[in-house]
């Protein structure tokens, strides 16, 4: 089975700094593999371990993603090779642009049986790129996938929905977005980290994908600001459980919560 796993490389949320005017600074943020994509990588690697084949990691984004440490980080987690589409025109790409670039890259790789994505990106978490990718590739596409098993030429797939678990037989090729609980991602050891630098990395541009002008965004970001921080009240309620409950409800009523 020839698998492509999509992984977004994005600024680490814990490094985000909020300026005094509420705008966001990512200047000091370290870029990492999207936390939701780690499960997709793990699912892809396990499918290969059980059924043979290959795993290609695919990431698209601004030039900053073409970083030696990020490449090693991705490849140390099990993929056989990495394809990077790096262009600063993709700096603030919305999901439709991302999906179109991913689709063009998957088509250029060619002969892919299965594309896996995480349930959403770690920075914007729109949860749309995977579904749009399936549509663009004109392949069966499902999200909320919590189990995948190869069954002959198709896949037996479980989807965790709000009130039920759906079991589907999905023909290949297909696109699946996996949940965060599908697997616990493995942690790379030194051997795998050292091996990562020897694995092939293909660096493509938008021109290589015949998308030279970039793609038109469908979402315009007008501004991005952090909510105003609210000073903590630091109220300590003492007394018996009944008295404390009464005092708590009084405070909540006063604040308009109840």
């Amino acid at each position, binding site marked *: 089975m020839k698998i492509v796993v999509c992984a977004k490389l994005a600024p680490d949320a814990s490094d985000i700094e909020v300026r005094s005017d509420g705008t966001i600074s990512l200047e000091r943020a370290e870029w990492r593999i999207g936390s939701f994509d780690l499960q997709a990588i793990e699912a892809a690697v396990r499918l290969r371990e059980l059924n043979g084949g290959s795993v290609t990691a695919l990431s698209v984004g601004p030039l900053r993603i073409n970083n*030696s*440490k990020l490449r*090693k980080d991705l490849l140390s987690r099990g993929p056989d090779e990495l394809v990077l589409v790096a262009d600063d025109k993709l700096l603030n790409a919305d999901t439709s642009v991302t999906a179109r670039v991913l689709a063009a890259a998957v088509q250029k790789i060619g002969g892919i049986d299965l594309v896996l994505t995480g349930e959403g990106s770690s920075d914007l978490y729109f949860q749309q790129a995977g579904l749009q990718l399936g549509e663009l590739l004109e392949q069966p596409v499902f999200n909320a996938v919590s189990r995948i098993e190869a069954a002959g030429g198709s896949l037996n797939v479980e989807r965790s929905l709000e009130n039920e678990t759906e079991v589907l037989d999905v023909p290949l090729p297909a696109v699946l977005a996996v949940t965060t609980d599908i697997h*616990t991602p493995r*942690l790379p*050891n*030194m*051997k795998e*980290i050292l091996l990562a630098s020897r694995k092939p990395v293909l660096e493509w541009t938008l021109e290589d994908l015949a998308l030279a002008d970039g793609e038109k965004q469908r979402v315009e970001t007008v501004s991005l600001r952090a909510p105003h921080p609210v000073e903590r009240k630091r109220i300590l309620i003492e007394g018996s459980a009944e008295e404390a409950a009464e005092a708590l409800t009084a405070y909540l009523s006063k604040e308009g919560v109840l």
Partner: protein
Amino acid sequence: MDFKWTEEQELLIQSLEELLQREAPESLMAELDAKHEFPFKSWQALADNGILALGIPEEYGGVPADITTLTLVCETLGKYALPLGIIYSLGIITIRDIIQFGSEEIKAEVLGGFVRGDLPVALGITEPQAGSDAAAMKATAQIDGDDVILNGQKMYCTLSKIAKYILFMTRDSQGANPYASISMWLLPTDTPGLRFNLLNKVGWWTVPTYEVFIENARVPRKNLVGQYNSGWPQLMANFEIERLALCAASVGAAEAALDDSLSYANRRVQFGNPIGSYQAVQHILTDMAIKNENMRNYIYKIAWMMDQGMSVRHEHAMCKLYVARAACEVTDSAMQIMGGLGYMMDHRVQRLWRDIRLMRIGGGTDEIMYNIAGPQLLKQARKG
């Protein structure tokens, strides 16, 4: 000068930090400490994720790693799960002795097992009358055909009962020079004739220490590690890295103590303001941070020197002396910042404070570090 780690080192430490948060969280370390239980599952997780393979030759399942990388691992273990840092550091000396001096058979058995998750080989050196003066040991080895019969009593033999082996040091009473009369044996802990007496310690509650009585323990003569009567220089060959590893774990613990202190100083409100807003507290925190920075710089300079093949004969002793004392000061300051809460058994700081105190004694006392460094400094000055 470049203070940056390699990308591989950064990725390894990133992976190890996540592993420790998964497999050795603070809540588990606190629980095991209270129960005086060894962290078997966390130790196995280190093996399963290739940490124990670092620095072991590839033919025994290991992965090449320089001393700087091993130091980084020890520091990270010390910061997130100090007992694991201690256990790993204790293992470094015996495991490296096996690598350097063990026969092929011993190496395949011990190193392969260690990579798969066996506990480190315990070190049997100290005796009731032979502590800092370790060469005053009295344990004996009597050759009997293809076997050797071991006798003696070892003190402060950490991990010995739960480990598979003790690296057992004996002295040939016929030798005039004690330093040329010591031999090193691989003693399986299930050998008939061994008795263990658990010792109660102020700290290191998850890392058990024993008094071991060895009476007519018969092992094959091929269990000799290295050359007969060459045990002392063999042991000394790896004392420097053991001390560096213990230092690195101590630095990690001091960083954890500072993290707890900073978090508490921002959170704890007295007289209407967080205590961190008061200069008296800021001064303590700044002194702690400076000591941590100095300790880190010191250990990585020693690691770098060792990786370059440079001698660290007196430098490592000065580093151990400084780090052990500074780490004790930092954990003590953490307890001071946290006041009554820091003295409570529920908080991590008291554990760091207890566990770190041994660093001024174990692996060579402060006073022995002075004894190593002082004469070397004078000798260098005479040469210069």
